[in-house]
């Protein structure tokens, strides 16, 4: 993977396609969890491809390529949500979910939406994509202990929010 990434960074389009093939499911699922509909999630995949092509030359740590793609995805989803709220004056919960019968998913997403964009990003990276604290610390330019504290604090917040929801 690192070899392909390095080739893609150097501008090899074929390598970029191979890279997209390995990360597309992660991008799509992350986008779906934020945007809720297949249509919007696909729109995100298109834009992430475009943004990745523009910025791939700036990657400094090829080993963290998946995290890089997920972060682009999350940033664009946050942009899109902000724009849509502005334009449509819609509460995001009104947008139909692609998996609306699944109450567990809906319940967890409702909780995640109550976090700040930054907190949600940490949780998604750590618990959905299994990114290590070491890698997260490097990506967010802090030390591992601080990263752990941030994630655990966010987890506490989620616990608190979940508890509040029960009452």
């Amino acid at each position, binding site marked *: 993977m690192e070899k392909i990434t390095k080739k893609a960074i150097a501008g090899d*389009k074929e390598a970029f*396609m191979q890279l*997209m093939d390995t990360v*597309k*499911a992660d991008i*799509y*699922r992350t986008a*779906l*969890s934020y945007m809720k509909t*297949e249509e919007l999630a*696909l*729109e995100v*995949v*298109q*834009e*992430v*491809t*475009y943004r*990745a*092509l*523009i*910025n791939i*030359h*700036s990657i*400094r740590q090829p080993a963290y390529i998946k995290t890089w793609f997920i972060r682009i995805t999350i940033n664009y989803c*946050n*942009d899109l949500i*902000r*724009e849509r709220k*502005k334009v449509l004056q819609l509460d995001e919960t009104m947008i139909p979910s*692609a*998996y609306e019968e*699944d109450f*567990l*998913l809906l*319940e*967890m997403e409702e*909780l995640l939406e109550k976090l700040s*964009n*930054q907190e949600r990003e940490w*949780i998604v990276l750590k*618990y*959905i994509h*299994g990114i290590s604290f070491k890698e997260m610390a*490097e990506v967010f*330019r802090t030390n591992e202990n601080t990263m752990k504290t941030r994630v655990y604090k966010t*987890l506490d917040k*989620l*616990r*608190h929010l*979940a*508890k509040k*929801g*029960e009452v």
Partner: protein
Amino acid sequence: MKHEDVEKQLENYKNKIENISIPETLLDEAIEKGMKQHKESKVSKKKHRYYLPKWTWAAIIFLLAGCVWTVYLIDPVFLRGNPSWESAMQNEYYHEINYTEKKGGINFTLHGVMMDEKNIVSFITIETENKVEYASIGKIQLFDQDGKELIFNGSYGSMDDDDGTKKRRFRHTVDAQISSDDMLKNGLRIVMDVHVQDEGVDESVETFSVPIEVEQIKVAKKQQYEVNETIEIADQKITVEKVVMYPTRAEVHVVLDSTNTKDILDYTNLQLEDGKRNVWGKVTNGVVNIMDEKEPHKDILYLESSYFQVPEQLFMTLSKVQAVNKNEREIIYSMDEGKIIQAPDNGKLIDSVFVEDNSLVFAINTPSEEEFPFGMFSYVLDEQGKELELYSSFNSIRNGKGYYGLELKNIDTLKGNIRIPVQYYPTFLEAEKEIKVQIK
């Protein structure tokens, strides 16, 4: 959901997400569309980040446009976007110094200078041993031959695109204007701090001191034209006092009438012309205008210089300025309530304000990047007027909207109202017809 189960529930959530079926064909189509979008896009809308040095309040823009094909004594990239520097070079007003010093892993070279009675422009390359995020010039001091510090206004320009990639070589220009005309008669010493930034490493700073033997340098004499004519644009009166021509730039000295209701932030299409289709516009590389804090009603505007062309006639033309109401020169934002208390034009152009990545970001409806290539802010004050620590200010265009951000230290703990003076703002005044003033 039981609160103690949150971690477990996240694990379940992850499993559920991983089991969602993937529409392979649609996904591949979306990727293909993204690749096509990239191929068709002529202009990449990347984030531009402008690092504003603390030592200057001069408004600066780095627009690196155009190419210089002539072979010169220095890398032509230094002259991009500044025809006056190019002319000065062609007319042998560039003086080679080639001072090199290596310190703390930094290889510093001052290639040479261009000098006239008031300005000294230095061309500098900083090289580092390894690729780093950024190497910039911080504090700059000028000393005369007796060691007395000279007062000057200045700006520095980075000649390399800030494209987010790590580099080993950084090219800079430092443009200093000394307050008194005769100070350049003596020997000079330029002392500057070089800051090297790289991720995961503390910023390193090294100081370099370069002697300049002024008596060996060909110093150009200025040409001065007295004008003293008052023009009016949308009821705002501006008196053009004089135009002073130096090899490296032309200065238009203006005085703003005390009865004006607006502050003029930029003279959008100001230019000099000779009536024979030759025009000298704004410099896109270096200082663009200076307002003296002691005399806020006076302005010095910088244009490209016709010094070496010596036209028979010279006119100044203008029809559009950027302006805000005098009492609306700053945005006041409540950190407690997360809302705007005051903004130019009643905040009509501000779409939203939000905090993202330690930055306070204003989404503003602006014209295109070509028409409004400016950052808006360069410093922030707290309620008491104390300057807050600003890591950087930046602007980017996303989805057809301008986002103007301020990366602030401890943004989460900021309280009360903060004041953000606007250096530029996309509200304009236009004259009914073009104003033309004869200079010569």
